[in-house]
């Protein structure tokens, strides 16, 4: 077939579509900015670090801005996906793989070998290399030297801001996309980056807390050091940890009921924010195949089970046996957890048994295994051990395999290979909880416009979560899927105006049809009423 992609292996000119001279200059600017970071990484000692850091980040941002303006503002408003499957970088060509290797390498060094970034490698534990380049900015914001996390946070924020700008230009005809992008830019800059630094300035005993990062995505918030850190800081600490608990048990269910999980995943969340901005060029790479969906359902729910059991075990180990110390003893806690899970389970089975179909069986197996695990833990656990392993090993296993490797190395490092949301889709336990609610108790759906679908596949192609949107649209059926993050790109790229993200009543939200609107009304009645 002549439409198979035959990537040229040429690095100089692999693409069918050329970029303009102005875009080449913009690329050079950006590369120079990155080159300064690379020089710092290889221990070039810049004389005036503040100046060079500003220069580097400034050039990266400037390059992205100039490139984007040339790419989108020179054309009329509209869908701008020309050549996305031709360009080497966005179609798993050689540039895509190179970028994937670089990103993956960066994450491995960041999580496991921060000393190569220069963390505390200088005299008296001062930073060298890349991290020292960021010292001036860190000093400015919080009066301390930078850490690898500060470097990462800064680059992350820069990426969301610069590529967010690009995204806004790309979708300048679409206000949903623009407002949503401004929102993720705001939450990243404010909540994830600036506010925690200022909180440190005000009270340097408080643990780092990104207020929008909710358990179980924020899996360390209920760790002993974290809880102690909050509790030892009086009312403000107590308020913060209460906010953390309220976030997941009160705020999240209400907002998800009203708006679907998109309020978080594509309006607030940092992981989502990066995927929607820097990852936008890779969104179409997610697999839409049935086997990917099956894998997704197993993986994401296993991670959820792991995170629930791990968190319960962590909290369990630092609680006491005795009521006299604190009312929340181990027995009370384990009973609360089991009770809460049981209420959810029974409630879902009672009200939504029909909708679950054969998945109800898997749900039941999952539920009873979690309860069994918790009971085993309760009756075999000691002060340090749960399941006969050290509780802290359980926690660090989660931190390494899920928190670092899955969400960082694979989730972001593999953007150019697996698409931009593989973490959100296959791994994020928060997405699993929100998705579960979205599927069963939410007003949100993507409405299909009668019989207008032409099965072209633009919607499925651009779905970063790998939902085969067309499968529903061509049947005239609304899309109600737990994984949908409500980014709205399917609706934007639809050439026939078939899809609309909406919050409406729960009734008739799921509407499977066999014969579509526009045909004989008697036939529709005959077939669809079955």
């Amino acid at each position, binding site marked *: *077939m*002549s*439409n198979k*992609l035959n990537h040229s292996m040429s690095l100089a000119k692999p693409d*069918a*579509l050329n970029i303009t001279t102005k875009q080449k200059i913009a690329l050079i600017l950006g590369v120079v900015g990155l080159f300064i970071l690379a020089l710092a990484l290889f221990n070039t000692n810049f004389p005036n670090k503040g100046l060079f850091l500003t220069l580097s980040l400034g050039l990266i941002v400037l390059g992205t801005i100039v490139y984007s303006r040339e790419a989108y503002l020179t054309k*009329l*408003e*509209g*869908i701008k*996906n*020309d*050549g*996305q*499957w*031709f*360009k080497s970088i966005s179609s798993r060509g050689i540039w895509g793989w190179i970028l994937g290797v670089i990103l993956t390498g960066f994450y491995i060094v960041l999580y496991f070998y921060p000393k190569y970034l220069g963390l505390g490698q200088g005299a008296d534990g001062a930073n060298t290399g890349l991290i020292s380049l960021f010292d001036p900015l860190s000093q400015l914001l919080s009066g301390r030297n930078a850490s690898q996390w500060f470097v990462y946070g800064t680059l992350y924020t820069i990426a969301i801001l610069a590529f967010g700008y690009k995204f806004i230009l790309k979708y300048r*005809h*679409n*206000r*949903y996309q623009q*407002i949503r992008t401004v929102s993720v830019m705001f939450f990243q800059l404010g909540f994830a980056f600036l506010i925690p630094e200022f909180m440190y300035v005000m009270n340097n005993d408080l643990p780092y807390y990104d207020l929008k990062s909710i358990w179980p995505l924020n899996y360390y918030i209920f760790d002993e050091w974290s809880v102690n850190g909050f509790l030892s800081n009086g009312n403000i600490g107590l308020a913060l940890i209460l906010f953390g608990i309220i976030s997941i048990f009160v705020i999240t269910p209400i907002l998800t009921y009203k708006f679907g999980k998109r309020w978080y995943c594509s309006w607030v969340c940092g992981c989502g924010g990066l995927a929607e901005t820097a990852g936008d060029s890779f969104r*179409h790479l997610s697999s839409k*195949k*049935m086997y990917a969906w099956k894998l997704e359902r197993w993986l994401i729910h296993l991670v959820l089970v792991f995170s629930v059991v791990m968190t319960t075990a962590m909290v369990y180990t630092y609680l006491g046996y005795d009521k006299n110390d604190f009312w929340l003893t181990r027995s009370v806690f384990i009973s609360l957890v089991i009770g809460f899970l049981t209420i959810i389970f029974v409630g879902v089975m009672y009200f939504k048994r029909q909708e679950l179909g054969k998945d109800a069986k898997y749900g039941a197996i999952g539920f009873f295994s979690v309860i069994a695990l918790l009971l085993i833990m309760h009756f075999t656990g000691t002060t340090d051990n749960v399941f006969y392993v050290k509780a802290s090993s359980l926690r660090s296993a989660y931190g390494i395999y899920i928190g670092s490797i899955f969400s960082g190395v694979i989730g972001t490092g593999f953007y150019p290979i697996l698409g931009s949301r593989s973490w959100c889709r296959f791994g994020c336990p928060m997405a699993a909880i929100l998705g579960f609610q979205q599927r069963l108790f939410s007003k949100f759906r993507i*409405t299909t*416009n*009668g*019989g*207008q679908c*032409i*099965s*072209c*596949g*633009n919607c*499925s*192609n651009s779905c970063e979560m790998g939902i085969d949107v*067309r*499968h529903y649209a061509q049947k005239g059926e609304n899309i109600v899927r737990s994984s949908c993050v409500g980014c*709205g790109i399917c*609706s*934007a*790229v639809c*050439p*026939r*105006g078939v899809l*609309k*993200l*909406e919050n409406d009543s729960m009734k008739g939200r799921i509407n499977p049809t*066999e*014969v*579509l*609107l*526009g*045909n*004989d*009304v008697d*036939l529709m009645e*005959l*077939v669809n009423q079955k």
Partner: protein
Amino acid sequence: MEHIVIIGNGISGVTLARHIRKLSDKKITIVSAETDYFFSRTALMYVYMGHMKFEHTQPYENWFWEKNRINLKKGYVENIHTNSKTLQFADGDTLQYDKLVIATGSKPNKFGWPGQDLEGVMGMYHKQDLDNLEKHAPNKDVCKRAVIVGGGLIGIELAEMLNSRSIPVTFLVRESSFWNGVLPEGESAMINRHIKNHHIDLRLSTNLKEIKSDENGKVKSVIIEETGEELECNVVGLTAGVSPNIDFIKDSAIETGRGVKVNRFLETNIADVYAIGDCAEQHEAIGNRRPIEAVWYTGRMMGETLAQTICGNRIEYKPGHWFNSAKFMDIEYQTYGWVFAKSRENEAHFHWKHQDDTKCITVAYHKDSNEFLGINTFGIRMRHEIFDKWLTEKRDVDYVMNHLSDANFDPEFYSKFENDILSAYNNQLQTA
């Protein structure tokens, strides 16, 4: 087990096969000479533009067919022997059927232009046309200019395709304004301007005289009828409409006109032979519809309907209210009910256009009864369900104009124009 053979794996044939499978256990075979698997024809353009790969235009994964026991046979049917119920293939193979459905779709029109079969001259309909275009117009260095002949939906899509690879396009349109046999004047004029804004050389009221060849039998240039001007080009796209793809049937006993003649039950003159989709021609037009409807949606509806008949519940093809859609470069178009290019007797149009020149609507209504007849909408998405309901309820035009916001289907946070539209409507009534 009864063997149903469907010739053609487009939307009509595939919809039919899916519905027969839902209703019965019959043996089903789909025959196609074009591709191994069903793909969305309307999406071919996005493959050339690089939005998608060809595999993404296939609505069902390859395992779907086996799982649903739908046999796929690749082959070109040369002859249909209706007496022995046998299909004869070009490669000598034969296939027996109990019931036969012809769903072979269309082919691009050629009007006997000199040079119309040269290399580099193509329609834009089949998968093979896409391959051909990729060969002759991979980029702007190989294809320095392309000329498109025929101003319809496929023509403007081809222009958009070539434009995506920065290939200069001259667009020859016979009519005095783009697609004005279908679109009212204001809309058609807006699309003319939109085409030109994309730097496409749109030539209205212009006909092709001949296509000239170079020494290798490839396209060198075209000559324009009206001016005699010679335009050098490497590709010529013939997009002057389509007609039923039924040449292979002409020698059989099946009655044909322009298409395969069918009655309201989609039955041909031969028992157990049916035709659906673009290639079917109704003896009598249904309502305002044309006898041949080369539209995705009608093909699908005929497939949904015929499945009932084939599975023992013989019913008429009785389509509901007319609807259609298209996209002209960046401007989406939807239509519900009937809005004719020129309002018919006793009909009137209300036209509103936004100042940015990318959005407009035209509403058709009956002059005396004020009954709402249909709407064309450009750049504003509207709800199929609502208009279908209003047409069934025979709402009057005032009601529709006052409730237009109920029908809005634009994404959240989009600017709304219903108030603008309504005040323009009220003003027009006062002055009229």
